[in-house]
């Protein structure tokens, strides 16, 4: 059993830690006027000006080659920057998908021309991508997508519909998983990834309001959208392999642990103002800490495997499922703690943050794969299917 035996306690190497103090000093100043309930949006927050500032600092595209505007740094250096950004609740949503997934995908599978065209603006924090995977009736059954691109003299003619597309209304581009050959019944065969310029005629983006009142995901409709031949990323028919490799990289990062950390820190600060914190509150703080710390250690250990060129897909799923459940538990547990006080004055700002996370936290165990899908992946890794 190497999956449960193979992750040892390690640490981020010194070259990874090198930037932490500088990043933290920048963030302390950059977010000091943003209220906590806005910072709590973290990687759902949209602020293109902030993304450009990060680009100027060299903190986007850190692992990209310098030839494409990157900084050729190690994955751990990026891990540290991301960890700090999330813990400060910095508004990183504008560039988040482009920097984490789209540009690395293009760097891995794209043509030289695609790399030169699309990657440097991502590293500058000027170009934003969204991901077109889900469809109205596909959902977790991702392989059943029906959006279709048919090759024609001008390139590809795209028709169909995507849904739950994060920040599509703010993005210039989507990387869409579409059917380019065969039928939906062919499952994994015949799927391809295409770069879609969302300003093209025939593209309609319609934001969907979530129950917190935000509209960070969208429906996107394609009606006879004419794409150029070079819209294709990688090989025709290889979209499924490309997508599954892409998903493995987004499952064990700090974003699966720290989505509720702004609230956690705000609540801890409130406990520190109380003359005598309740023992139950201290115990809850410890319960969250003693769950979170081993997951962070696991996340770092998985990152190390990725750096070594391994594909710890199951290990990443183990971290993601537990991390997102804990992220979801934090607002519920803190609400229980705060409302156990009789007549205590709870700061309004703390309640705003609590309310926001209470309403948005259902998505933690949906985005990047539902709990059921992840548990199925773990079962597959254990040899049960």
């Amino acid at each position: 059993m190497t999956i449960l035996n193979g992750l040892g306690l390690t640490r981020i190497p010194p070259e990874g830690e090198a930037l932490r103090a500088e990043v933290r000093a920048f963030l302390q100043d950059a977010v000091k006027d943003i209220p906590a309930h806005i910072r709590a949006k973290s990687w759902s927050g949209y602020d293109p000006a902030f993304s450009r500032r990060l680009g100027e600092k060299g903190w986007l595209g850190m692992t990209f080659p310098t030839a494409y505007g990157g900084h050729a740094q190690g994955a751990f250096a990026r891990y540290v920057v991301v960890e700090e950004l999330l813990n400060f609740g910095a508004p990183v949503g504008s560039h988040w998908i482009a920097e984490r997934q789209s540009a690395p995908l293009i760097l891995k599978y794209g043509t030289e021309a695609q790399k030169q065209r699309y990657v440097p603006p991502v590293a500058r924090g000027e170009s934003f991508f969204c991901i077109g995977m889900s469809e109205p009736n596909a959902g977790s059954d991702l392989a059943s997508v029906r959006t279709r691109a048919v090759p024609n003299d001008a390139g590809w003619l795209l028709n169909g519909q995507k849904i739950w597309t994060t920040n599509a209304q703010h993005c210039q581009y989507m990387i869409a998983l579409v059917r380019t050959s065969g039928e939906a019944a062919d499952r994994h065969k015949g799927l391809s990834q295409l770069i879609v310029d969302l300003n093209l005629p025939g593209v309609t983006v319609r934001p969907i309001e979530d129950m917190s009142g935000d509209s960070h995901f969208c429906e996107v409709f394609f009606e006879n959208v004419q794409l150029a031949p070079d819209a294709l990323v990688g090989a025709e028919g290889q979209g499924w392999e490309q997508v599954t490799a892409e998903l493995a990289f987004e499952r064990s990062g700090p974003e699966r642990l720290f989505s509720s950390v702004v609230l956690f820190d705000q609540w801890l600060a409130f406990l520190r103002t109380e003359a005598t914190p309740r023992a139950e509150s201290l115990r809850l703080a410890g319960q969250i800490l003693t769950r979170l710390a081993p997951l962070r250690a696991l996340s770092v250990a998985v990152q190390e495997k990725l750096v070594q060129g391994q594909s710890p897909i199951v290990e990443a799923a183990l971290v993601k499922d537990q991390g997102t459940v804990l992220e979801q538990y934090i607002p519920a547990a803190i609400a229980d703690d705060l409302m156990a006080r009789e007549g205590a004055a709870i700061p309004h700002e703390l309640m705003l943050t609590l309310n926001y996370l209470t309403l948005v936290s259902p998505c933690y165990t949906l985005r990047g794969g539902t709990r059921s899908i992840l548990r199925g992946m773990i079962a597959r890794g254990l040899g049960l299917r």
Partner: protein
Amino acid sequence: MDHLIIDALRDVLTGQCTPAIVRAIENEVAAHNGCAPETDLTKISATAATLWQQIEDTGFADLLLPEDEGGAGLALRDAFAVWDLLGQHAMPLPLAETMLARGWLVAAGVAVPQGAIALAPHLLVEGGGVGTSGVRGARVAQWVLGQHGGELVLLPVAGAQASPSIFVLDADLRWKAETLVSATRVPAPASLLVAQAGLVSALLAGSLLTTFESTLNFANERQQFGRPIGKFQAIQHELAVMAEHVSAARMAAQIACEAGGVLADPLKVAVGKARTGEAAVEVASLAHSVHGAIGFTTEFDLQLFTRRLHLWRQTAGSESYWQLQAGQALVAAGGMSLDVIRQITDSTAAA
């Protein structure tokens, strides 16, 4: 960590600490329970005496001693792999405890006595004597290393009045005041409770792994409705959740043992003991769920492990105790929780 040591220990345990031997020791001790404790283990359990002698002969109890004292000079972070293995084999003797006690005694300049040493972090002086309840492994130990105030006291099991405890290998012990006066005493270098909680975290990590692996094997073999039960999605999800708890708990136990010497970090131990304790309850429950009624029987080996999961969870402070300790440390620390988390999770081994 020296892989030769681990491989050698694995060989000994695979051959000499089988489920049959664990059962024999428990049964032999049960037959003597209520009787006075003995210094000669053969009078209580010949099987325990044989296992102890094999371990003593190979030097595993001395691994934490410096090399010039006949040990291997291991630190706690190296001992994790040893204690993990003991947990994987449902070790019925206080070997992990003896390793730690010998390490501490030698560091204090005290010669180590022959035989197994159980731990009693909370010795209570009362009515002219000293006592403590639920000493883990006391029925198969010759000594108890207890903590009383700022002192460690080494007490002979043979000099104690013993009464049965809840777990068959444990005992409630009571010594006369004279025994306490004449006992070897040294200043305690740290909290014995913290030390015990750290090693129990590692034992739990091992038993969690075996419990999970045997449940996974069972799910692949047990046929119901015409196919292995592991093919059913509900069972797959139960096993996935078990794997999650086991992975997090094993990492937490490594954190608990993350120390360069023989003294553990209290906050790291708090993380290890709280998280392994949570996992013990969940994993034991899920294991029995997957096994159905078969796993509930005495004759099936699962019980050797799930009883230990609950027992070790109840040893050296429960989740509530260690969560409170961790929470107090976190609130006292101030600043961002991230910095406390980094302090807990960053190994200092390569720094």
